[in-house]
């Protein structure tokens, strides 16, 4: 072939392959519905399989396959060795194929209820959901679940793919029966389009080519629909301008730009923008890329913006349209999907990450749970793995956001466990509960420093944590006595004076324990504000709660004291007879016994009371207070 002819043919093939950009698709359904077979069929029919891949597929089909002598397309997809042997897909796998018009990214996720989080992960970036139904079985509980979750995650287009039509004699009546049943559950949700298509993944009917057996189908084939449906980016482009700043670009003193990806809307030189948090305004002077400056940038474009004046902007800030600003709030309502074994407890402190914004956060209330199969509201005190709840949250720093239903990119967040660093929750913000700007702390003439000065001391929280019987109260009592003898002003909080009054409504479940510590923390904070040295003696078994109290007061004011005695020693001492009761089954959720104790990893003071007398232990605490300048 001559050079020009080659060039022309390459250009022809490639340009066509990119015309309509990228469509992200999630397939929902179980192995039984033929989900993997459908995806395998899409790859096969789009001629993306190479000979060596087909060879491996044929070999694997004989070894693990369920389609007899025929190729089992499902085997193309179940990636990891163990999964293949179990015959289930347990994670999110991504597949790619191109047609003449589009590139497709397919998130293949498992269908069972215990994999709700995997489905949500795949759905979070998808433009379209293919909801598979077995024509013989019709709409099932899982069909509803997939539909609700797809809708909750903001997917705009639903395809109801009624599969295995060959097994119901390609019956038009059966198809319509399933469609009308489906529409009763899906019609009133938020989908922009719902497109039912009768298919047979195994034989390829109505996937790439029209089915001879189902000439009655007058809608599009699956591929026709996938090639022309609009994407989320197109919707985002129509929303107000949002630009989360990722990275400050400062190669030298002459250039200061803000790098990021336009989340929604568009921007051009000359446009006015504001920083969401500070309200500071500026004009765009340049839209910089390595391919030269742009005249405009819109949703999805990764650019670097230069402003016409110097204003304070850092990673985590959001540039926005001054006429349509995002919400900025530290209290808001959100749907949360819980993604880890350890349950979500209201009051516990997590890290919230929304784009480049990171803040400590706690769930103030769990308003209700949503049943993942019916989406009906149910009462609940905590969220377990794969459960969804509507919650109110409170962040330490205000967050800039949009409602998730309007803008996925700026309306979403993840929750991170502060100790394991695992991603534990996914959140979709519904609305703000109050504007952060409306809260003004009343400045008092007499403040913490003044109160402390009058007492000639620096306030502190001495937090004694450890198992029951480790010696917390004994040591705290000695410490307070020594402080009092030295003329210091103190107060002591312990189970006896808190559980009988302030917290008498709380029991000993994990949820109540978290709330117990939260209230104690707030009270301790008030005493610190009053200028006192506060001793707190609580088992406080969870790291997260101790961390939460630590963050309530100033950095240096929190002294964590780990009163560390082996469980056997504590059980032997058993000053209140509690271990005996726990052993007899009279007390449930007893720490160290049938409820965990998470030892501090870097306590300021570590007292091993197995071989340290209470007197010596108290003396060490006093020494530390002197070293750190709390007392002279």
């Amino acid at each position: 072939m001559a050079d020009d002819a080659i060039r022309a043919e390459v250009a022809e093939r490639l340009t066509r392959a990119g015309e309509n950009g990228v469509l992200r698709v999630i397939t929902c359904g179980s192995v039984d519905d033929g989900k993997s077979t459908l995806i395998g069929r899409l790859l096969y029919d789009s001629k993306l399989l190479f000979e060596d891949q087909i060879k491996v597929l044929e070999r694997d089909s004989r070894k693990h396959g369920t389609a007899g002598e025929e190729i089992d397309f499902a085997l193309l997809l179940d990636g990891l060795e163990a999964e293949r042997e179990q015959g289930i897909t347990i994670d999110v796998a991504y597949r790619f194929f191109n047609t003449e018009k589009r590139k497709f990214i397919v998130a293949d996720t498992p269908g069972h209820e215990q994999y709700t989080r995997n489905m949500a992960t795949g759905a979070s970036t998808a433009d379209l959901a293919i909801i598979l139904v077995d024509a013989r079985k019709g709409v099932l509980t899982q069909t509803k679940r997939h539909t609700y979750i797809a809708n909750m995650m903001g997917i705009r287009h639903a395809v109801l793919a009624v599969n295995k039509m060959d097994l119901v004699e390609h019956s038009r009546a059966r198809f319509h029966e399933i469609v009308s049943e489906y529409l009763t559950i899906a019609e009133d949700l938020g989908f922009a389009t719902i497109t039912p298509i009768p298919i047979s993944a195994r034989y390829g009917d109505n996937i790439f080519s029209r089915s001879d057996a189902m000439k009655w189908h007058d809608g599009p084939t699956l591929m026709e629909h996938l090639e022309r449906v609009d994407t989320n980016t197109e919707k985002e482009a129509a929303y107000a301008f949002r630009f989360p700043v990722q990275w400050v670009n400062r190669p030298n003193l002459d250039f200061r730009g803000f790098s990021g990806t336009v989340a929604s809307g568009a921007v051009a030189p000359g446009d006015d923008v504001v920083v969401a948090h500070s309200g500071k305004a500026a004009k765009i002077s340049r839209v910089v890329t390595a391919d030269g400056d742009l005249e405009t940038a819109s949703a999805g474009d990764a650019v670097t913006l230069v402003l016409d004046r110097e204003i304070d902007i850092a990673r985590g800030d959001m540039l926005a349209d001054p006429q349509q600003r995002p919400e900025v709030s530290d209290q808001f309502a959100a749907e949360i999907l819980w993604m880890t074994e350890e349950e979500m407890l209201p009051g516990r402190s997590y890290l919230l990450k929304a784009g480049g914004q990171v803040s400590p956060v706690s769930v103030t209330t769990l308003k209700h749970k949503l049943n993942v199969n019916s989406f009906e509201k149910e009462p609940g005190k905590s969220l377990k793995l794969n459960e969804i709840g509507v919650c109110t949250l409170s962040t330490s720093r205000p967050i800039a956001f949009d409602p998730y239903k309007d803008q996925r990119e700026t309306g979403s967040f993840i929750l991170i466990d502060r100790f394991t660093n695992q991603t534990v929750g996914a959140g979709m913000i519904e609305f703000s509960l109050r504007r952060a700007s409306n809260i003004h702390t009343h400045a008092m003439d007499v403040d913490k420093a003044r109160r402390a000065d009058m007492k000639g001391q620096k306030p502190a929280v001495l937090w004694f944590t450890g198992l029951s019987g480790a010696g917390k109260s004994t040591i705290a009592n000695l410490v307070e006595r020594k402080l009092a003898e030295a003329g210091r002003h103190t107060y002591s909080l312990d189970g006896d004076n808190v559980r009988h009054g302030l917290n008498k409504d709380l029991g000993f479940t994990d949820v109540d324990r978290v709330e117990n510590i939260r209230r104690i923390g707030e009270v301790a904070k008030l005493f610190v504000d009053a200028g006192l040295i506060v001793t707190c003696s609580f088992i406080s078994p969870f790291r997260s709660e101790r961390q939460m109290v630590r963050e309530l007061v100033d950095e240096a004011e929190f002294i964590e004291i780990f009163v560390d005695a082996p469980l056997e020693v504590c059980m032997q001492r058993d000053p209140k007879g509690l271990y005996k009761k726990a052993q007899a089954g009279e007390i449930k959720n007893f720490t160290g016994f049938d409820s965990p104790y998470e030892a501090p990893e870097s306590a300021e003071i570590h007292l091993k009371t197995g071989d340290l007398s209470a007197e010596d232990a108290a003396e060490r605490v006093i020494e530390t207070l002197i070293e750190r300048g709390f007392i002279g």
Partner: protein
Amino acid sequence: MTDIQTRIRTYAQRFQSGAQPRARELSPHLKALEAEAIHIMREVAAEFERPVMLYSIGKDSTVMLHLAMKAFFPSRPPFPFLHIDSLWEFQAMGEFRDALSEALGLDMIVWVNEEGKQREINPFTDGSALHTQVMRTEGLLQALNDGRYDAAFGGGRRDEEKSRAKERVFSFRNAAHAWDPRNQRPELWRTYNTRIRKGESIRVFPLSNWTEVDIWQYILEEDIPIVPLYFAGERPVVERDGTLIMVDDERMVFEDGETPEMRKIRFRTLGCYPLTGAVESEAETLDDIVLEMLTARTSERAGRLIDFDEAGSMEKKKREGYF
């Protein structure tokens, strides 16, 4: 100056401030993939203390490097590049790497497993498995530990191999650099969890959603220089068990009856020359290559000898810390 050095010089001028912008508009899907990769790279630069970008000199790696040049423009990429040199790469690869890093002003670290060098590990006599284990996997781990890197970019794509299809863009590694496929962090939207403890790290794959076709089309549209071995040329080869091995230097160990012959060949993937099979080809230009690939019937890893064992072999390697 050789042709490729001149070509690279011209290419590097594109990233000078005030250079003439390129007129060509990217295909929409490549523009989306490019923006995604740039977003990922900026997240890493902003959130990690000691990131590094692995550079293998291959086409995917070179695309990744090109994307890094674009992501931080007009700044230089704010991290070093790291090449794990097995000492058995094609000579043309070393020349390409040096010319590229010099022209672009990159901080390019070339790491050799000194212990392996002392032991004179040789793929011909020690076998591919041992050579790869010592010079690549162990070399990589040494380099990562030595640099105390908390994030390392790799050019892996999800379409390459089944276990990669399930790997996250931000893939967590424990302090021993091992991957636990059963315990991956959920990855939603474009919000990546970058939190790690001391000693742990994240491997980052900005090209996760690219396919081989996308890579070639991008190289074509962006006019990115690649190692000349990707283009067909007359080169000395021997045929061994159906694989064409190029005689790249005097260390080549011939088996009985083997004599090199000149054939018109090219490589679809690059690595250690004794372990990388060539294909006979007439494709002398990028357009030729793309056309050949669009009509190809074997996937690119078929040319890489180390992947030829069981289907799950890549997963095993990854658990041990291989990219």
